[in-house]
């Protein structure tokens, strides 16, 4: 069930990535290149409009690169979409939708089940495990609308676990959470990477110190360009952070 055996082996490689919204449009991303393996947490940092959400959209397959490549274990990432779970910004979800927590997690089985196959015992076991991991078993019958912001994020992480995706993309997951909620979610993301062997990539607006508490790597973007990629401890001492135009 656990994906921890993938930690350090499965690799995400981004090569000279450029992307634009529409032909002839100004590139929103230019020359992004790095690689990172499973078992890590990576923060996407930069000011508003730096290209964080655009970068996540490319990784999620929502926006095609205009040039460059995104590879997952040597294969184009868009060809293994089931490997990627995307958790959009909270504002992108209809929270009044009539669905229970278990129902949300069961949606994660869609890529495996397809249109016609009925959910079997193995699927039930995977959903149960995901709920258990995210400590959602007591809440599984509750409507998603009745959960706190932190619990809703946990339900979406459980859906990603049920999907058995190795790459988790989160767009500003801490927005709208109180401080205990931020800490609890941060600890969960670390667990997802270290114990479950996932690669967690999240766009963040927090201070570098707070980012370093949860994430071990960071990609700093400024006006669509890569200004820094490396460990968070290196980021804290990076001169790129001192630039007032890219300060996070």
């Amino acid at each position, binding site marked *: 069930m656990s994906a921890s055996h993938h930690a350090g082996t499965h690799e995400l490689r981004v090569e000279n990535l450029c992307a634009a919204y529409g032909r002839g449009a100004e590139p929103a991303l230019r020359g992004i290149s790095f690689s990172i393996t499973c078992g890590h947490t990576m923060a996407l940092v930069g000011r508003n409009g730096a290209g964080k959400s655009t970068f996540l959209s490319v990784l999620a*397959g*929502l926006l095609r690169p205009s040039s460059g490549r995104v590879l997952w274990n040597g294969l184009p990432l868009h060809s293994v*979409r089931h490997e990627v779970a*995307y958790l959009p910004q909270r504002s992108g*979800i209809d929270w009044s939708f*009539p669905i*229970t927590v278990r129902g949300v997690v069961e*949606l994660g089985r869609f890529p495996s089940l397809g249109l016609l196959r009925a959910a079997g015992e193995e699927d039930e076991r995977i959903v149960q495990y995901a709920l258990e991991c995210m400590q959602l078993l007591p809440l599984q019958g509750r409507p998603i609308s009745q959960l706190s912001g932190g619990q809703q994020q946990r339900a979406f992480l459980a859906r990603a676990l049920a999907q058995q995706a190795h790459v988790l993309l989160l767009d500003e997951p801490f927005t709208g959470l109180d401080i205990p909620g931020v800490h609890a979610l941060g600890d969960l993301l670390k667990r997802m990477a270290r114990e479950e062997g996932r690669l967690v990539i999240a766009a963040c607006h927090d201070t570098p110190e707070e980012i370093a508490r949860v994430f071990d790597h960071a990609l700093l973007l400024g006006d669509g360009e890569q200004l820094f990629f490396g460990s968070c401890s290196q980021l804290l001492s990076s001169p790129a952070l001192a630039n007032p135009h890219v300060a996070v």
Partner: protein
Amino acid sequence: MNDFLQFLSEPIAQRSLWACAVIGAADGLMSALIVLRRSSLQIGTLSCALLPGLALAILLFGLGEWSLLLGALAAALLVGLSSLFVARCSAVDADTSLSLIHSAAFALGYLILLSLGLQQKVDDWLFGNILSMSNTDLCVAFAAAAITFILLTLFRRPLLLWLFDPIAAAALGLPTRALSYGTFALIILALVSSLQAVGSFLSLGLLVIPGATMRLLTRRAQLMFPGAALIGGSCSVLAFFLSFPLGWHLGATIILLLALVFLLAFLLSRRGK
């Protein structure tokens, strides 16, 4: 009572009863999708847009079953797509442009039908007349119901994912634009196929109220579909048996019964809070 039993033995009554059950259940099923898709307002305006299609079809091809059906379909598509076009190409939002275009089209259709001397037909198309359904109308309703049941059952999982979290659905490679246009086309099909039975005004109730009722009764979207189909079908059949002895208009009786069930569900849901 004897009159009613004699009426029930007539082919026209049996045909109407079948139409009530099938159209009620299919529109009920569709209403769950419409409520979850938050398209009720869109359907309200589109349902009125069928009238100019009927008028133009009669003007161009005469009064025939297929010309009416295709005219209504063409009008719904034309009004729906042109409102999208206006919204995309101007500062006017989609709801405003749809309201604007549908009211202009409705006025045009009404004037054409009056000038053709079809006042009685206008009433039938606005409020429906299930007893005047022809075999072709019934076949169209059955075919539309079968398509609706098959597609909504087959695509239940991707539809739920798309309705709840469209961005994650797109990230998983689901053709979200095709789902959007496909469900829109299905809604138009349901509207057109129930036109003869409940009319363009009253079809709105059948395509919204069962889903809205189930929205109050369940926390699970997947239960809304069979529940709304059951409510739509059973209220339509019950209305058939009530309307004859009471001397009420059948289409209006269906909508009143559905509204009553909604009211009960509303009171029940308030009690639970």
